[in-house]
């Protein structure tokens, strides 16, 4: 058993739902007990989809167990087909149905429905959402794709590619498709099929007509791209066009493939390079960031943070065990050991330990950062309703890089504000109780909120608890500490305390404070 408070990924059948919902004319029949319909609200509420996901749940109850759950499944299959008339019917078992072993695939297959029935093996007790999505996409492609060899064609004036990976409930997939299609168009490449997002079974049948594949989200589409490569000899572009550097690399890779000159496309780089070089961004230099997300976005974010923002990556991790090797390799480049875990408490511990100045993460890290009073921007699923904005806001391509600049810098203070704050730190409005203006008026004393978390750590908790009589700080030093701007004060406090403990210089005097400052700046 694995103890879990929040989960980064849902069960694998939610992944299957993301594929079915993304496509047109595909229906999923899920053998499941009452309650599993909660997953509908992910699509109707969080993504604000206008239709219910194309899913029928058999809804078996305790009284059906051992008697007629299979019969129930059969009736549900027939009625779902009659009502929705899909082009393809996916059938799967949720975690509970997997235990009762009704063989949904076998039953549905035996019904003689006039459409392809694709059974899915979800392995609910081993696998998770992304795997379920990848598996479903792969099974659908295998079932629908016309794999007969294509006759050799006369050289096309424009090459064609498939855009693979975008799903329902994906992080900005909706806008990434538009942005990447535009880039490809500029390179003289037409889109053959976008899948699964918006695709029909008939579209999947003609995947083989493309000259190559572009994998936007390897977590979802890697296995399909590999099979297409093997079957049709289609090469695959899997450099994610994230950030300016990533987009350039992507453009160059595509240009090489289609033998065209990338330079006209590379001239358009968006605003990020200049915004990063403008002097207001000087204060971003060396800001310590902690990054956690799915593998693709986390790895790219680390590169962008380093090369395009001038940040220092102090932590990098992912909940995607399937891509753990890539994340570990990326982390090594920054001299870090990657954090691969599904346990958000472990992520929280790491953030508390590292004390970054910015967190780039998922919905979970947003909760953690909020609790710790740290600035945070979202870079990856799982996300919440706020992360499906009304405006166009891709992550990929040069426009995506513009979006990243705004999104990551927004939670931080701007350079001029930063400067003024230190100039006027004795002003009453900048007093420690005023709190940072950009985090809203309600956040009164971020330092006070952080202290329990700091105190709860082994070592500090024990020493503070065992020696209440001896104050850690002299009054003068405490007063001096308050002159340090609040956004660096908690770090100064912590560093000074560590410095003082290691040298047995408790209580901390003004002298100790500045000795510690010099020590950490050296």
């Amino acid at each position, binding site marked *: 058993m694995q103890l879990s408070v929040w989960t980064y990924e849902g069960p694998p059948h939610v992944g299957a739902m993301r594929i079915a919902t993304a496509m047109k004319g595909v229906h999923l029949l899920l053998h499941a007990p009452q*309650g599993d319909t909660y997953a509908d609200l992910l699509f109707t509420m969080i993504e604000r989809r*206008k239709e219910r996901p194309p899913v029928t*749940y058999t809804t078996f109850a305790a009284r059906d167990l051992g008697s007629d759950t299979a019969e129930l499944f059969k009736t549900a299959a027939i009625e779902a087909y009659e009502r929705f008339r899909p082009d393809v019917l996916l059938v799967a078992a949720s975690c*509970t149905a997997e235990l009762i072993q009704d063989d949904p695939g076998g039953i549905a297959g035996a019904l003689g429905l006039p459409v392809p029935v694709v059974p899915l093996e979800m392995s609910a007790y081993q696998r998770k959402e992304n795997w379920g999505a990848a598996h479903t996409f792969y099974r659908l492609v295998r079932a629908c794709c016309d794999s007969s060899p294509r006759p050799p064609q006369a050289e096309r004036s424009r090459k064609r590619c498939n855009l693979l990976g975008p799903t329902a409930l994906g992080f900005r997939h909706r806008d990434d498709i538009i942005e990447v299609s535009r880039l490809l168009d500029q390179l003289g490449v037409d889109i053959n099929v976008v899948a699964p997002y918006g695709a029909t079974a008939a579209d999947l049948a003609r995947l083989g007509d493309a000259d190559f594949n572009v994998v936007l989200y390897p977590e979802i589409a890697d296995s399909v791209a590999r099979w297409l490569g093997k079957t049709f000899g289609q090469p695959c572009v899997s450099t994610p066009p994230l950030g300016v550097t990533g987009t350039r690399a992507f453009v160059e890779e595509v240009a090489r493939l289609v033998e065209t000159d990338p330079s006209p496309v590379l001239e358009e780089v968006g605003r990020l390079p200049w915004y990063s070089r403008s002097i207001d961004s000087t204060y971003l230099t060396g800001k310590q960031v902690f990054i956690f997300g799915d593998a693709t976005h986390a790895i790219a974010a680390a590169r962008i943070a380093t090369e395009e923002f001038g940040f220092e990556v102090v932590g990098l991790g992912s909940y995607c065990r399937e891509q753990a090797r890539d994340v570990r390799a990326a982390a090594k480049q920054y001299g870090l050991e990657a954090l691969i875990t599904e346990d958000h408490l472990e992520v929280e511990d790491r953030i508390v330990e590292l004390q970054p100045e910015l967190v780039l993460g998922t919905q979970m890290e947003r909760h953690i950062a909020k609790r710790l009073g740290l600035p945070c921007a979202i870079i990856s699923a799982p996300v919440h309703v706020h992360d499906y904005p009304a405006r166009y806001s891709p992550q990929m391509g040069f426009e995506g890089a513009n979006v990243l600049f705004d999104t990551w810098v927004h939670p931080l203070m701007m350079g001029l504000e930063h400067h003024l704050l230190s100039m006027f730190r004795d002003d009453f409005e900048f007093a420690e109780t005023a709190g940072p203006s950009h985090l809203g008026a309600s956040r009164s004393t971020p330092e006070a909120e952080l202290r329990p978390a700091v105190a709860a750590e082994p070592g500090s908790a024990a020493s503070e608890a065992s020696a209440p009589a001896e104050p850690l700080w002299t009054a003068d030093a405490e007063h001096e500490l308050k002159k340090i701007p609040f956004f660096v004060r908690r770090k100064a406090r912590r560093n000074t305390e560590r410095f003082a403990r290691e040298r047995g210089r408790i209580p901390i005097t003004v002298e100790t404070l500045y000795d510690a400052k010099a020590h950490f700046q050296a």
Partner: protein
Amino acid sequence: MSLVSDISDDAGRQLPVLKQRGQREVFCGLTGIVWLHRKIQDAFFLVIGSRTCAHLIQSAAGVMIFAEPRFATAILEEKDLAGFADAQEEIDRVVARLLARRPEIKVLFLVGSCPSEVIKLDLSRAAERLSQVHGPDVSFVNYSGSGLETTFTQGEDTCLAAMVPKMRTLPAEAPRSLMVVGSLADPVEDIFRRIFEALEIPVVFFPPRRFSELPAVGPQTSYLLAQPYLAETGRALDERGAQRLAAPFPLGVEGTRGWLNAAAQAFDVRPSRLEEVVAPAERRAHLALGRAREMLTGKRVFFFPDSQLEVPLARFLHRELGMTPVEIGTPYLHREHLAVELSMLPSSVTLSEGQDVERQLDRCRASSPDLVVCGLGLANPLEVEGITTKWSIELTFSPIQGYEHVGDLAGLFTRPFVRRERLKV
């Protein structure tokens, strides 16, 4: 899909009940943890289930919880499915880790789920064993929130029913007292407590805010249900000798008055005294309903099954705000507990129990109601079709009972109309 589809007569009221069976668009009982863990502040809820269970609770809890919640899921893995002895050891390990992290926990609920029930994991055995190890500081209670047996609010019912055997028995010489049963928002509970004090009725609330304050029970206990979904809890209290006071539920002015009146009569409070105590609040409540009544009178409302609050809510909307219920869908119709409520409904209404969501949607569209009360999975798609909706989960999480919140309750139903009127896009 309607394996069973028939019209049977409701004995008490002669109201026909439509029963269909098919896809149910409802939560399972695990969802109750979302409000129960806030209500009982020294409790922790540990679901023994699958990744789906964990995902469900976090999706239902959504953005509401920023602190570390007092619930978690022990996710069953492939290796746990091999043998049960192993699973019991795993529970011990997980519980030990939890208690080390949260030493303030006084009661730990082991919550059964669909998968734990299918593999017949014996959680009562686990609770007994854990009590021996970690007791008496920590109590262990097990109940089922599985979707195989419970729908949404029934999870609170099974939870409370499992706590009843833990109640001490009132000493024989203890005077008669009132127990209010069913979780209410704290502000609502405080207001009711003040009213009962003014009526000089000794009162306890169940569930308590802390497990250490679990009330005692006995034949001297009369209980009032504050929520309509407590079939099992009622039965468990009956077995302890307590007597249920028949009453409507405290929704709306009329419901609240009838509910308080049942207690007043049972405890021989003079009618004039009750009048005296509630008159100012009733005046305020009527005032608060004025505008809502103007806006809602004559409008037709359709309920999809959700929390079992549907019948009392429909009664309130009908009798106090002039709305016409078209269909009242409810996951489960407890005829005895709802007897008073059912007698107050118009005979034109269709009552439906259980659900075949596709057929119900067909009926809903065909009847073109002015307002549909439904769950989150259905609300946005219906809005897209031009149908005004009120998402029902808010009715479970908000303080809506009693006089002082009656305006807020009405506001939940007027807001969708106000919004539609305002928007020009």
